[in-house]
């Protein structure tokens, strides 16, 4: 902003001002004497008055007094009888007094006029500065993308920036002078009296408002109001900035709806889970009891009537017992499987290598007398549920042991093929009987078996359990095999939480 000094007429020094008095009076005197030669008389008084007026105008009051004094002396000396003396006859005194009073009046008037004019100029200049500042500020407000407008205390728009035009579609010419809330169809969240009370009390208000654009579409804005007061502290105008939050609000509503939906779903799931739990409990308790009784009484029958039964009948009794036994195992396995799905996972950092060693120790208890070559590679520590992962490894390793039973020397390799930042792939490879890849999709189903029970025992639930554990670790399980060429089972574990 350029600070420029207003040019005032009072820029003369004292010498110049008093010199002006002397000069103007001298010129007036000279002019009067000159005209007297051509017998033009009685012009001296107007000339002296003119000199005094000019001096008063340009030289100020002090210089004017000097000019008045000099004029009086000059008039007395050159133009009143007796000439060339400064003697004043009594008859001339009123004449002098009138002259002096008149000259004083001229001086006074011109001084007043000058003062007024100086004040006026100053006011004009100040006004010009202010206008320049305001214009600059207004153009700055126009630069911002934010929607800004100003309204007076009757809510009539007095300023409307470009951001407002962009948001609402009204040009400044259309908007200024209109009632803001009528133009924008503002819907307030609270009674306007309350909002105004807050604005007047704290000087500001903010909240969410529903408004309409020029084309009639609705827009939700985060609105902030600031109260401007005039120099006497009276509320003068309200500056309102608006931010379009329509999209955000819509997303919030969507998220809320989705959350509610999710809440409903998880409530449903919880109910289903409860039912499943009740079912499992019932299986666990109620189905096992009659089975136990069946086995128990058959056993007692065998004991009491053993000698009376022929061989065939004895075999029947044995079959009943075997079947009861098998059903017991099936129920237990099924329960274990359902427990994997229902139990909460407790994930910690687990050393997979140590887990493999533990699983090996458990499986080896049942491999007495067999020749098995074990190859265990290095495995990382991973984030997972220790007991579940252990169960998975025990299942896979005991499968490998089971299906290599026909080999004179079993070879079982456990390792890790692929370790990335967020995923690890563990494999268990054997040289056992393998399976036909045609049936690979049946491998992980509950009670699915690819071998007759006479060849390899089992309930067909082990791999289903492993798959469930792997899924609960956000991983995947798959297998590769050729009939009689061994099999390799892979499972991946994800670092993220995975599906629960």
């Amino acid at each position, binding site marked *: 902003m350029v600070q420029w000094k207003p040019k005032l007429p009072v820029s003369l020094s004292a010498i110049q001002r008093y010199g002006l008095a002397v000069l103007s009076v001298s010129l007036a005197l000279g002019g009067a004497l000159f005209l007297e030669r051509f017998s033009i008389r009685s012009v001296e008084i107007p000339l002296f008055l003119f000199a005094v007026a000019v001096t008063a105008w340009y030289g100020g009051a002090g210089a004017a007094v000097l000019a008045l004094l000099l004029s009086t002396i000059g008039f007395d000396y050159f133009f009143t009888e007796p000439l060339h003396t400064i003697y004043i006859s009594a008859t001339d005194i009123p004449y002098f007094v009138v002259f002096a009073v008149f000259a004083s009046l001229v001086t006074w008037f011109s001084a007043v006029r000058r003062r007024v004019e100086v004040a006026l100029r100053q006011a004009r200049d100040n006004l010009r500065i202010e206008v320049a500042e305001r214009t600059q500020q207004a153009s700055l407000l126009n630069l911002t993308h934010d929607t800004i407008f100003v309204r007076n205390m009757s809510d009539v728009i007095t300023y409307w920036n470009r951001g407002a035009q962009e948001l609402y579609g009204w040009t400044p010419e259309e908007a200024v002078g209109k009632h803001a809330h009528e133009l924008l169809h503002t819907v307030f969240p609270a009674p306007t009296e309350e909002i105004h009370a807050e604005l007047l009390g704290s000087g500001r208000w903010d909240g969410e408002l529903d408004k309409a654009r020029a084309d009639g579409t609705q827009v939700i804005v985060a609105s902030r109001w600031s109260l401007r007061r005039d120099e006497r502290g009276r509320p003068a105008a309200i500056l309102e900035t608006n931010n379009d939050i329509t999209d955000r609000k819509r997303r919030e509503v969507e998220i809320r709806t989705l959350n509610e939906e999710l809440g409903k779903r998880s409530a449903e799931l919880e109910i289903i889970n409860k039912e499943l739990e009740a079912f499992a409990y019932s299986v666990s*308790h109620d189905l096992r009891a009659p089975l136990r009784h069946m086995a128990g009484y058959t*056993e007692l029958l065998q004991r009491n009537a053993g000698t009376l039964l022929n061989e065939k009948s004895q075999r029947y009794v044995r079959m009943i017992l075997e079947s009861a*036994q098998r059903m017991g195992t099936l129920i237990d396995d099924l329960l274990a499987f359902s427990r994997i799905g229902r139990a909460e996972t407790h994930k910690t950092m687990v050393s997979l290598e140590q887990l493999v060693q533990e699983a090996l120790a458990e499986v080896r208890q049942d491999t007495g007398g067999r020749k098995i070559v074990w190859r265990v590679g290095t495995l990382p520590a991973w984030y997972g549920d220790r007991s579940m992962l252990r169960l998975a490894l025990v299942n896979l390793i005991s499968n490998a042991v089971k299906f290599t039973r026909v080999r004179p020397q079993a070879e079982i390799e456990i390792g890790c093929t692929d370790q990335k930042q967020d995923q690890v792939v563990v494999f268990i490879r054997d040289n056992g009987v393998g399976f036909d890849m045609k049936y690979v999709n049946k491998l992980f189903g509950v009670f699915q078996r690819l071998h007759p029970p006479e060849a390899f025992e089992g309930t067909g639930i082990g791999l289903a359990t492993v798959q469930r554990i792997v899924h609960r670790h956000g991983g995947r399980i798959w297998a590769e095999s050729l009939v009689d060429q061994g099999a390799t089972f892979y499972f991946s574990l994800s670092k993220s939480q995975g599906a629960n």
Partner: protein
Amino acid sequence: MGTLGRILMVEDDPKDVELTLTALEDYNLANEVVVTRDGEEALDYLYCRGTYETRSGENPAVLLLDLKLPKVDGLEVLQQIKSDEKLKLIPVVVLTSSHEEKDMVASYRLGVNAYVVKPVDFHEFVNAIKELGIFWAVINQPPPGSVKKH
């Protein structure tokens, strides 16, 4: 086997009662078994009320408790016993069909002394009952105030 403690069995299933008693008989442990058929009857026995009003007030040497019982279930009986100053010393063995971890945890929380899942296989069942009977009724020294047969 010098002394034999009285066993209180809480079991609603008559077949289970018969099989358990048979198993105990095999080892001559069945003489001192009192059978109650639900939680309420068991508590009546322990508090000497109802049909057990006239019995002498000693506590059993061990309580074999099924969990799934009519009227008052096993966990409630357990809770009642363990929160009663006079009864809390009685060793309680939960003898159940339930493999559920939830039941096991709840039982241990309430202070059960042992938790046994009845095996389906009869031999295993007999063995479990035998060992339980021998341990709690013969080997274990029960707290003072319980019945011992000399």
